[in-house]
């Protein structure tokens, strides 16, 4: 279903004096494509590197240190067919610093960081080289390589097959003009949300970190749709490493805005997110077949991912055991279900102390037009029944098993 992301979610404020610094998070949303992910990777490097006001690395580091070691980081998050470019900055609570104008200075610097990057041929070529190295570095990690390859196997028509960190072939074709156009037409025009959390008044937060950014308030069409794709034949590839990577993708047919969303989330937790989960107990603890095994719910695409590293000789046994554990969810253990509820509720409460978790939770609910309330969410989780979980799991379908055989494993 296509929903409109609301303009009134542009500014979110949370007052607290528990942290030593004030955190500002800027989220810009746009559609996923190989071009956009690659351009975002380049732009993020350039935003962090230098800008028009501080045109050298030395000046950039100097101003950050002058602002009491203020931080600036960026990253990307996928939301179905859309992605978010997130920028986060932390600045010391002025009560710990010897500068009453610290926030004003930081605000001015933050605007320069986010709106005036130094986009020239020199910075572009540097960014291109660094992004290339970073993408190849990921491919040199068997665990990361297996995940990228598993998603790619879903086919070019699936958005989830696109690596959010960028695409090597697209990178080689990208020019400085492409980055400049992306910055002007996509990044600056994107639907933007600003979060300010810390020991600051709402008025000051808005004046310093929202009004100064000239954010274009507009509606953004957001689609939340579970992946609808037929089962794909298993893929087996190999690499000269010491362990085999096994990834199983399941189509759950339940995405974030589905009535069975919370039941699905609990099912995935019981399957492979707890020390008592089915996969952990049956495959690691009882049979010593792996060190790490877990399941992950990719909620906006309605996918469940299962991932482990094993010996090559155990591939068939582990595949069979995984299937058995997924099947066991249809008669889910009530005690384990309650443990999953307890742990997910614990994580929701913990988001009060972990700012980026809070931003993630709040933002996800805003996207599906449900006001985020941790109290209500906790109540809803507590009300999920065994029947709800069984109903959710009965919608699951096999999608793909990907194996990256370790030739020395």
């Amino acid at each position, binding site marked *: 279903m296509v929903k409109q992301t609301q303009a009134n979610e542009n500014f979110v404020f949370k007052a*607290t*004096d*528990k942290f*030593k*610094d004030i955190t500002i998070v800027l989220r810009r949303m746009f559609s996923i494509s190989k071009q956009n992910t690659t351009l975002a990777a380049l732009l993020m*490097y350039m935003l962090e590197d230098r800008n028009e006001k501080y045109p*050298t*690395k*030395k000046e950039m*580091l*100097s101003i*950050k*240190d*002058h602002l*009491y*070691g203020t931080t600036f980081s960026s990253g990307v998050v996928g939301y179905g067919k859309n992605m978010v470019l997130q920028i986060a900055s932390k600045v*010391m609570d002025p009560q*710990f*610093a010897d500068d009453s104008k610290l926030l004003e200075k930081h605000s001015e610097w933050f605007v320069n960081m986010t709106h005036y990057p130094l986009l020239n041929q020199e910075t572009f070529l*540097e960014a291109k*080289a*660094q992004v290339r*190295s*970073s993408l*190849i*570095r990921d*491919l*040199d*990690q*068997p*665990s990361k390589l297996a995940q990228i390859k598993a998603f790619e196997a879903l086919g070019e028509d699936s958005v989830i097959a696109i690596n959010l960190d960028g695409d090597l072939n697209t990178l080689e074709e990208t020019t400085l003009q492409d980055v400049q156009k992306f910055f002007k037409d996509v990044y600056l025009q994107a639907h933007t949300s600003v979060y300010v959390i810390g020991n600051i008044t709402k008025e000051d937060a808005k004046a310093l970190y929202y009004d100064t950014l000239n954010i274009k308030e507009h509606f953004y069409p957001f689609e939340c749709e579970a992946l609808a794709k037929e089962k794909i034949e298993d893929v087996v590839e190999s*690499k*000269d*490493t*010491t*362990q085999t990577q096994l990834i199983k993708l399941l189509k759950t047919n339940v995405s974030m805005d589905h009535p069975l969303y919370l039941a699905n989330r609990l099912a995935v937790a019981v399957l492979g997110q*707890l*020390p*008592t989960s089915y996969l952990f107990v049956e495959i690691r*603890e009882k*049979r*010593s*077949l*792996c*060190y*790490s095994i877990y399941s992950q719910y990719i909620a906006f695409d309605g996918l469940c991912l299962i991932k482990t*590293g094993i*010996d090559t000789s155990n591939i068939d046994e582990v595949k069979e055991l995984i299937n058995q554990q997924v099947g066991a969810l249809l008669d889910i253990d009530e005690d384990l279900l309650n*443990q999953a509820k*307890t*742990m997910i*509720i*614990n994580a929701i*409460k*913990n988001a*009060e*102390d*972990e700012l980026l978790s809070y931003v993630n939770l709040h933002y996800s609910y805003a996207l599906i037009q449900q006001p985020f309330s941790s109290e209500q969410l906790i109540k809803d989780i507590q009300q999920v029944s065994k029947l709800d979980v069984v109903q959710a799991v009965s919608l699951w379908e096999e999608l793909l098993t990907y194996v990256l055989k*370790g030739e020395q*494993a």
Partner: protein
Amino acid sequence: MNIIDNPYNEKIVEFTTQSNMRVIVVSKKSFVNQAVGIGTAFGGLTTSVLLNQQEKHLQPGLAHFLEHQLFESELGNIMGEFTKCGANVNAFTSYHETVYYFSTTNPLKKPMTLLMDMVNDVSISEASTQKEKGIILQELSMYDQMPEAMLLKQTFANLYREHPMKNDIGGSKESVQNITHDDLIQAYNLFYHPSQLTMVIVSFEDVNVIKQWIENHPLASKNTQKMDIKPMVVNETFDHLPQSFSMNMDVSQNKVTVALPITSFASTSKARLKQQWAIKVLLESHFSEINDDYQQWMDQGIINELFDYDVDIEQDYGHVLFLFENIKKEEANNFVLEQLQKLTVNKQAFEQMKRRWIFSSLRVFNRPSSIMTQLLHYSLKNDSYFDVIDAIESLTLEDLQQAKDNLETLTSVVEVTKKN
């Protein structure tokens, strides 16, 4: 209870139980999350000790193996018990310590009691030891496929020939296979006596109530005999340096480390901390964006965003390590040696870095789990986290000059490169 004075006005107290376990409690009333850790100074480097003045050698990887085994309890699935009360439990083994910890937003007493139960007794069967071997061997295989993990493992194995830094924290597949049930029981008896444990609690609960809970636990009154055990000091001569080594992996980009030993150590731990920070300041003022040449090195492809350096100084070892990517090992080595000749003591850069690091240390107090980990780490070394801040604040230009004069120029170079 003693109050621990600190520059950040954090409410921290400490006390010692009847069994001689050190306990540190940090009050964080405004946080909903709480973190608790119990640690012992038994880590990957603990492979030779003096027990009742006799040398005793332990298998590499023993501390890490025992960490795995403490989750095996006769009471049943202890991890499941933590989960039932809404606590995330885990553990880690570093070169210097083993730490068991949990975090929770739920009532503290039950998981805290479970954590104390875990370290208070060991109840492992021969069968569970064999089962755990399989899991640990898979863990070692997992790290062996990671290029950077393999590079670091090989870097230390090459730099050190005698010192236990040559061993991986988890040991080798062979040493893990050789560890017996008896080795584990003996190691537990040696290193988990309450007098060797430190417990750190970061919580919103009343500190007096927490103290009462701890004192009511058998771990606080355990009356077993304390072993006379001391870590053995191993002096590495580094006669094998300079040296260079290449290893092949299925990678597209090569990675290189250039390591230099530090052979002159300060005599006290506080002085070593200061020595370590003095070297960090020297290196940061040259090998970071503060240096005008940094941009040129990037443009020339000598360094990239992965480039990094690290300094580590302990009682009987020390080294400086540089990490490169996409450069030949000979070029990396020449670059380090050339640049070390150019190190200068830059007063302005020094003040800039002091400011950054002092405020960065304050940020540890933003998260209960970070507070717990840092306080526990320094406490297990018989230091205080606040000694780090003192070390940075008290650094002088003379300290930097001395650190510069003591830097060695013998290198060990290791490269991970693609197979032909």
